[in-house]
């Protein structure tokens, strides 16, 4: 649902800027919060929907169990260390930003820390999905 308020906020910033001549930057900043959170969730949602792009002209001929095993190995060897690395490397800047309730550097509007939180949320959800995939097998929800 988040994409609808993002769309509305980015749409209204145009009349706000041209007609009201106020609040357009506030609308843009709020849209940025929502956008960051939306993307943070969307990456894992695409994994669950099996929507990621892949050049599988050859691999589509492999038996289903082989592809499932490949996906599980890739989750374990690639996404698990990558997400842990992002969580580790992003933590110092994120914790500082949240503790200070960091504002947007250009407009000084509050909530910039939410954008940084978006990166962490993204990595955390990837990690949780990996755990689910490894424990239960790659997602069951299909496109």
């Amino acid at each position, binding site marked *: *649902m988040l*994409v*609808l308020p*993002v*769309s*509305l*906020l*980015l*749409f209204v*910033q*145009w009349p706000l800027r041209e007609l009201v001549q106020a609040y357009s930057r506030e609308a843009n900043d709020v*849209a*940025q919060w929502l*956008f*960051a959170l*939306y*993307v*943070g*969730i*969307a*990456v*894992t*949602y*695409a*994994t669950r*929907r099996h*929507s*990621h*792009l*892949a*050049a*599988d*002209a*050859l*691999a*589509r001929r*492999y038996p289903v169990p082989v*592809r499932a095993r*490949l*996906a599980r190995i*890739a989750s374990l*060897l*690639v*996404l698990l*260390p*990558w997400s842990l*690395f*992002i969580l580790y*490397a*992003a933590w110092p*800047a994120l914790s500082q930003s949240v503790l200070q309730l960091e504002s947007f550097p250009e407009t000084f509007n509050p909530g910039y820390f939410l*954008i*940084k939180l*978006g*990166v962490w949320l*993204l990595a955390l959800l990837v990690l949780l999905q990996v755990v689910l995939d490894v424990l239960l097998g790659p997602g069951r929800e299909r*496109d």
Partner: protein
Amino acid sequence: MPSAGLWMLATVALLMIATGLPTWIVLIGVSLLFSIVGIAGGLVDFALLTALPARLLGLLENDLLQALPLYVLIGALLNRLPLAELLFRVGSSAARRTGAGPSLAGLALGVLLAPMNGSVGASVAMLTRTLVPRLDASGIPTERGAALVCVASTLGVVVPPSLVLILLGDAMLRAHTEAVNATGRAARIINTQDVFRGALLPAAILLLLFVLVTWGESKTPAGREAQMSIPPVESGPSRLDWMTAMATLVIIVGLLASVTLGYLYAVEAAATGGTALFVAGLATRTLSYPKLKEVLRDTMAVTGALFSLLIGATTFTLTLRAFGTDRWAAAFLTGLGGGVYGALLVVLLLLALCAFVLDAFELIFVVIPVLIPPLLVRVSDTTWVAVLVLLILQASFLMPPFGYSVMMVRNRLDRPIETGKLVRALAPYLLAQLLVLCLVLAVPRLVWHEGSTQSSQGSPSKPLSDKELQELLWQQLGPGEPERAPEGK
């Protein structure tokens, strides 16, 4: 070992084809593997890799990228509302007398929808779902329908103001800034509008040729046979259908034109289009709650897939730079002989090879930042280079049997197509593509230039001399520098 980046690219291509794993996972996996080897061998500094979260943050606060889910939302709304079908029916009816109504309507739908999907992969998914059943019902042979979907899916690469063009404009801006800083040349830096406008005339010529090819195919014996097999239609579109289709067309074309001409920001236009379609769907009661859920799910899934690619590409590029491959490539290109055309043709060939396995987004984020800045040191006409890049990308996506669009369409279809038949169906489109590419290569004036851009940058026939280039390389990197390990070792 600066050439490690080339091995990384080769490994990505190999693993993508051999495993069929999602591209973003392969990009991250190869980056991890090479990073570990690089750190263990003392070639890569671990501290450099900790910049990755900051780079990912850059994606989440990029104004241009906010347009991405909004364009996808418009595409999903057009697809799930009866509008895409309505546009196709009205288009077929309008072009009925040409004898190629359904094919031309399909091409037109590609022109309208493909620029909004951002990715060739997403366009293929959407147009296969929207067009193939309708082309089948129109009696068009499978291979011709598939070829049409391949072509229509790649139109988003060249028709402004597609997301590919927006992001390429941004990548060209960065590349041009790097080249101008390196040469110290006084030049107005290219912007996204320059790329939009530069692509207009070549895209128009290409579209015209595609229309002629599509129309011409309907005049062949096979095309006539297909027309004979079309089941009789009980009634054409109603007056209300025509009015709705025209209103939709005016809104979409108006928004696309206003962005191309610089009256609206891409993000605002996408937001306006998305909001207008959403409100129209509610007002006309065509957007029921179940349909809205489907639209939102489609939008989030496609957005997630596209951002995953950007995340994979960002990780990959950082590793590539940590090995110093970008500077190595710069030194290689700067040292190439053959003047402007020598370096340009080498870069276009490399891009074409990469485009066999990578999507436009991956190319823009992974390959272009490495290859284009050194090319722009040699070739001063940035808009011309940008348009050539677009044309070569589109041609590569269409090249059977490994072209990205071709592979994706074959994957998506529920029935196999003989490669020979598909090649024959695509051949006229590829010839048209080649013709426009050669035309733009030979006549750079076909590309629109901002007056000051052209005068300040000079023409492509006034490059730096080889001696000047060697001096520049010496100043920038120092003797033997291309072999030196990156900073931080």
